């Protein structure tokens, strides 16, 4: 080991230890989607992210207990609800049990004259009261008699009935044994609201696990537990993707190691050839952590993939070493080409650093730091670590002659024409299918099955739980203005329900009317003497017991002299929870969110809302738009990156023609890759785009090595061997991924596996055969 090598080794070791120590103390991985928001996001997109983060719909877990007798299910529902209510992970748990809503009922009852919409002066006149009392007599004679009797004396005008109609317009979910059941009685239903936000996949997982544990502890005979909701889906998706990613990565790693071992016939060499990519990842993550604070989970996944081409760097070194040659000497020969391979990757990623999406910027930093480090490690650390007796075996030839395969034995000129025609055909396919190029629906990327989605719809329908897709938004400068806006939105939505555009809605002003409305209702209440007089006149001739309505007179007097209802009065109840989730701070002002149920005509509802000055937010469309704008910006930055790469190549190769010879095969591979994907009926998403970036990086490397001046047949054979090794490892790794049933992993796998084969063939066909190129 020479002196410089020792120094380099020491620097590498110190860097690795320092980065590990930093990450151990500071690494924080986030899954917060806001990182992926452009800084110039629209208010709708900001609201979308707030909804994903805090939205009540995204925090709901729908629980269904099925199988077994309804009495057993009802018992299980009660026990499960009790256990979950005492669990700090849940903000509320509802199974329809009226006893559990005692506090809320008392609050509504105490404030009925401030909350009930039909309150008006006429209602408390002698005529109004007489009409109400007659109605009570009729109700007493009806099957409803037993149920209205308990409140008759204190609520003769029926405000609690009005509130019940308002808050549970169609009677709410089905009930058996006083608890929520599906209409056929086969399932006991519960709704749990988690404290963890919907995006907090880990928090959701803990909540789901504690529901499963609580259920397992109850162990009702023959009953099954079914969970649904956004958080359940998110954590399901994560575990599916994680599980598949681990399984397929393990398979890929075994295949890659087997290929490398077949090439090097040395375990030590295989082991140290992993060092550059590992070091690159370590330094890359540290750089992102230093620069941004939090590292996003998606950055990690994509970043590891993008610098995956660094796995190839040591392959170039080891396979290019001539028989008996020291690695230093090999590096001296291929060093400049290796650097160019690293630099093209670095400059390609440079544009991403400038992105207004923090997620893309993170990806750029990770790629630049990672690829540079991997290059440096290959150049300086590998020769120092290689076994002292590292001696390449006799020049091994590739199992077949790539360039012969690619051009089918014809003249190079013929091969070029063939490739040009092929690429032209590919371009034609892309243009022909341009309308279908992009997949604009994120839903296609979820691995959630149709059966699971259907089950969610059924449960949501049974429970009357809000739609997770649509929401009406109104705003106000302060809380009072927002609540007044909420009241006008409620009036609009009531009309829309009557027109059949949707089934129902919820608004915060239902639970907390604006001060203006409360004042109007209070003003409608007569003073004690007037009310007593009106009541006397109303009761005359009717068979009600003397003094029966004293509680009513007291209640009205109490509300007249009492304080207005405010959020503090509701603190600690489910009503406060509702208000907090439906009335939120939004920038400088307040936003009111009105969750909707069963939106039947979104287009008509959106138009009507706009005309009425409200806004119908389609969370799905907003999310798609967000990801699509991310994709569009990525495209622009990639184009900019390609420009940088061209400049670097022209400088490095000292010739525009030679630069093109490297660039063209790589780009041709991308065109053909996309064309083939389209012909296979696939559509491209953001994930394919990142995969194509990797294809470009690999393609450039292949072309660079093919294009490198080769001294003799032996060197050409070595070059082919190294490219076959690189191509085979990439094909093996991403081929495994393409087997995945998860759309995201499948898309990445197919794109890269196909791209690696195409890049190799095209690089061989277009850039190879130095001896033949006369001009």
């Amino acid at each position: 080991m020479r002196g410089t090598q020792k120094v380099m080794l020491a620097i590498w070791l110190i860097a690795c230890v320092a980065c590990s120590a930093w990450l151990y103390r500071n690494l924080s991985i986030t899954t917060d989607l806001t990182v992926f928001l452009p800084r110039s996001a629209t208010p709708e997109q900001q609201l979308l992210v707030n909804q994903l983060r805090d939205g009540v719909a995204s925090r709901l877990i729908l629980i269904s207990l099925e199988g077994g007798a309804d009495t057993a299910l009802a018992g299980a529902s009660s026990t499960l609800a009790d256990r979950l209510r005492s669990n700090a992970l849940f903000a509320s748990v509802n199974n329809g049990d009226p006893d559990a809503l005692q506090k809320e009922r008392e609050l509504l009852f105490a404030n009925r004259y401030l909350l009930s919409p039909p309150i008006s002066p006429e209602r408390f006149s002698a005529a109004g009261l007489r009409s109400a009392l007659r109605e009570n007599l009729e109700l007493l004679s009806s099957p409803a008699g037993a149920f209205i009797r308990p409140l008759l004396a204190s609520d003769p005008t029926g405000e609690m009935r009005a509130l019940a109609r308002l808050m549970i317009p169609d009677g709410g979910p089905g009930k058996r044994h006083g608890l929520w059941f599906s209409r056929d009685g086969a399932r006991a239903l519960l709704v749990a609201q988690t404290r963890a936000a919907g995006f907090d996949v880990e928090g959701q997982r803990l909540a789901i696990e504690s529901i499963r544990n609580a259920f397992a502890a109850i162990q009702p005979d023959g009953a099954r537990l079914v969970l649904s909701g956004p958080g359940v889906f998110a954590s399901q998706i994560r575990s599916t993707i994680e599980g598949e990613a681990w399984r397929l990565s393990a398979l890929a790693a075994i295949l890659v190691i087997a290929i490398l071992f077949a090439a090097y016939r040395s375990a030590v060499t295989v082991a140290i050839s992993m060092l550059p990519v590992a070091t690159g990842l370590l330094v890359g993550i540290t750089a992102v952590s230093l620069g941004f604070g939090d590292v996003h989970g998606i950055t990690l996944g994509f970043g590891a993939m993008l610098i995956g081409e660094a796995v190839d760097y040591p392959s170039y070194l080891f396979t290019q070493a001539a028989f008996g040659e020291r690695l230093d000497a090999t590096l001296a020969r291929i060093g400049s080409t290796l650097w160019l391979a690293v630099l093209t990757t670095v400059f390609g990623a440079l544009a991403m650093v400038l992105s207004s999406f923090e997620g893309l910027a993170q990806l750029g930093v990770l790629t630049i730091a990672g690829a540079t480090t991997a290059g440096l490690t290959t150049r300086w650390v590998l020769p120092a670590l290689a076994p002292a007796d590292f001696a390449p075996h006799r020049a091994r030839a590739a199992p077949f002659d790539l360039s012969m395969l690619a051009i089918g034995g014809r003249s190079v000129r013929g091969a070029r024409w063939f490739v040009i025609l092929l690429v032209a055909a590919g371009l034609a396919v892309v243009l022909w299918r341009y309308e279908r190029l992009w997949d604009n629906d994120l839903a296609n990327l979820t691995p959630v099955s149709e059966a699971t989605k259907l089950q969610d719809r059924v449960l949501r329908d049974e429970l009357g739980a809000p739609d997770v897709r649509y929401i009406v938004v109104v705003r106000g400068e302060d809380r009072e203005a927002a609540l007044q806006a909420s009241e006008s939105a409620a009036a609009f939505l009531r009309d829309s329900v009557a027109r059949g555009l949707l089934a129902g809605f919820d608004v915060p002003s239902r639970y907390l009317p604006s001060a203006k409305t409360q004042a109007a209702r209070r003003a409608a209440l007569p003073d004690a003497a007037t009310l007593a007089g009106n009541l006397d006149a109303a009761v005359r001739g009717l068979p009600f017991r003397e003094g029966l309505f004293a509680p009513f007179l007291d209640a009205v007097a109490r509300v007249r002299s009492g304080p207005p209802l405010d959020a503090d009065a509701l603190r600690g109840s489910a009503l406060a929870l509702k208000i907090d989730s439906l009335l939120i701070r939004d920038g400088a002002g307040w936003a009111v969110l009105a969750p909707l149920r069963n939106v039947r005509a979104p287009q008509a509802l959106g138009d009507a809302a706009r005309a009425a000055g409200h806004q119908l937010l389609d969370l799905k469309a907003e999310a798609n738009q967000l990801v699509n704008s991310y994709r569009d910006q990525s495209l622009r930055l990639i184009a900019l990156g390609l420009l940088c790469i061209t400049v670097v190549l022209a400088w490095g190769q000292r010739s525009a023609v030679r630069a093109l010879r490297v660039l063209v095969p790589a780009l041709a591979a991308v065109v053909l890759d996309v064309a083939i994907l389209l012909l296979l009926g696939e559509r491209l998403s953001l994930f394919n785009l990142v995969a194509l970036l990797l294809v470009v990086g690999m393609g450039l490397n292949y072309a660079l090595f093919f294009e490198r001046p080769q001294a003799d047949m032996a060197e050409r054979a070595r070059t082919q061997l190294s490219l076959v090794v690189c191509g085979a490892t990439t094909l093996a790794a991403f081929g495994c991924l393409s087997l995945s049933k998860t759309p995201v992993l499948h898309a990445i796998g197919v794109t890269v596996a196909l791209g690696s084969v195409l890049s190799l063939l095209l690089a061989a066909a277009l850039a190879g055969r130095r001896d033949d190129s006369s001009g």
Partner: protein
Amino acid sequence: MRASAELALVVWVTALLASGSAAADFDKAALMQLLASVERASAQFVETRHSALLTAPLVSRGTLVYKRPDRLEKHVSFPFEARMVLERGQVTIDNPSRGRKMTLSIENAPGIAGLVESIRATRAGDLGALERFYKVDVGGSRGAWSLRLRPHDRELAQYVNAVTVQGAGARIERIEVVEASGDRSVMEIDEELK
């Protein structure tokens, strides 16, 4: 021998039980079968509600019309006009003078619906529907039976203590509801069967 003594005891007890059930020739199944044989029924009724809230009992009159298996209509004509229809699990209460109409389903409103079901399901001889809400006991004979319903549905039990239906043969003659509040409602029925 002990074993044979035990055997004798078992035989004796079994014989006793068998003769006991033979004696009660009129049970739930027999009553339900009898009631289920009716296709249509119409009746005049007088309903009297005794309530601690009122200075005098509240009396209403009208007609009941039943069509097998799941339609029941109660039409109040005095002292006010009202109509209640139970059909396929949906209860519609219609008060034309007030322009008020209310629809409930047995699933969401087990309270009111359970009470209405006590009439419909008894009339239909539908033991399953009765047992969904009530513990069912039958007493008396074929000529003068009484059906005692005690709610086990939690929501219904909060408001209703018991429903007692009395009848003779396939005819229903009287339905009494005792509420948790202590109020009592008695419906006298003069039924014509088809």
